[in-house]
């Protein structure tokens, strides 16, 4: 992948950590700083009829990343994600369900990063 700067690292991130309330953990900033790509999960307030099709898309994309050996992790939680992954025969990726702060998240990310495939 000459000239391609991808990290081969993808984090599924709960909506409230992508768009934190004032004083909340800004996971997007931590992931950006550490070179991880982000897949933002549907907002918690979306009705199931809205969130379900979006989660189907997330699962299909996770499947493609996993097939190619990319690191995939889950930051936070999202109801319905496990079911969407299970329909494709996938289990939930390694997760940090409740990151207590930026330092804890960075430690988790460093521990989750394996040798990037080339």
């Amino acid at each position, binding site marked *: 992948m000459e000239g391609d700067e991808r990290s081969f690292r993808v984090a599924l991130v709960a909506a409230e950590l992508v*768009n934190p309330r004032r004083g909340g953990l800004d996971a997007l900033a931590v992931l*950006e700083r550490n070179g*991880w790509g982000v897949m933002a999960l549907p907002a918690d307030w979306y009705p199931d009829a809205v969130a379900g099709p979006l989660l189907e898309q997330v699962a299909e994309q996770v499947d*493609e990343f996993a097939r190619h050996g990319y690191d995939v992790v889950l930051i936070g939680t999202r109801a319905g994600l496990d079911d969407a992954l299970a329909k494709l025969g996938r289990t939930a990726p390694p997760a940090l369900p409740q990151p207590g702060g930026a330092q804890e998240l960075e430690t988790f990310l460093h521990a989750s990063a394996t040798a990037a495939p080339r």
Partner: protein
Amino acid sequence: MPDAPPVTIAERGTRASILESVARVAFVAHCLLNQNAKVDGGARCPGVYSPLVDVLRERGWELQQMPCPELAFTGLNRFWAVREQLDTLAFRRHCARIAQAVAAAIEAHVARGDDVVIVGLEGSPSMGVRVTSSDPARGGRPEWPDGAPELTAGRGIMVEELLSELERRGVPKPRAGGITHVLPDHDPAAERAQLVALLDGG
């Protein structure tokens, strides 16, 4: 500057809740938060495209991410492609399925009074808003030269399907613009100015 008129705690709470409930929400192309979804050779940074996020955060916009229509259809090992190569019934159906999911989310935001914009990727055969890529003759063994004049005015297929689905639902068409970092004449300052104009245009 005169002080704001006094308000009761209840009034202040109501005003705050109104401000919090009326959000500004940007639906952004998948790859702008995840460059790992790009076609081989196309990732401009490891993960998140910071210039976009910086502007959105500075101006108080929430982010929602649209699925990448090419990633789940033609996969990570796909070739670079122009519109004509992707414009099949099967790819249209795939985009329409994604468009229904995204349009439902946009509809939910619009229903509660949120200001919504779409941020695509100029030059993309799928996610271009004003610039896409086109070459009716392209196909077969990939031997085309670098710099082939494939960029042209127009929308990508996914953006077309999304706007069509919003119209079908009776949802007012959101303001839309695109990030330009894949265009040969990319100018970071101009890109930022166009993005600010898009966000402030409401």
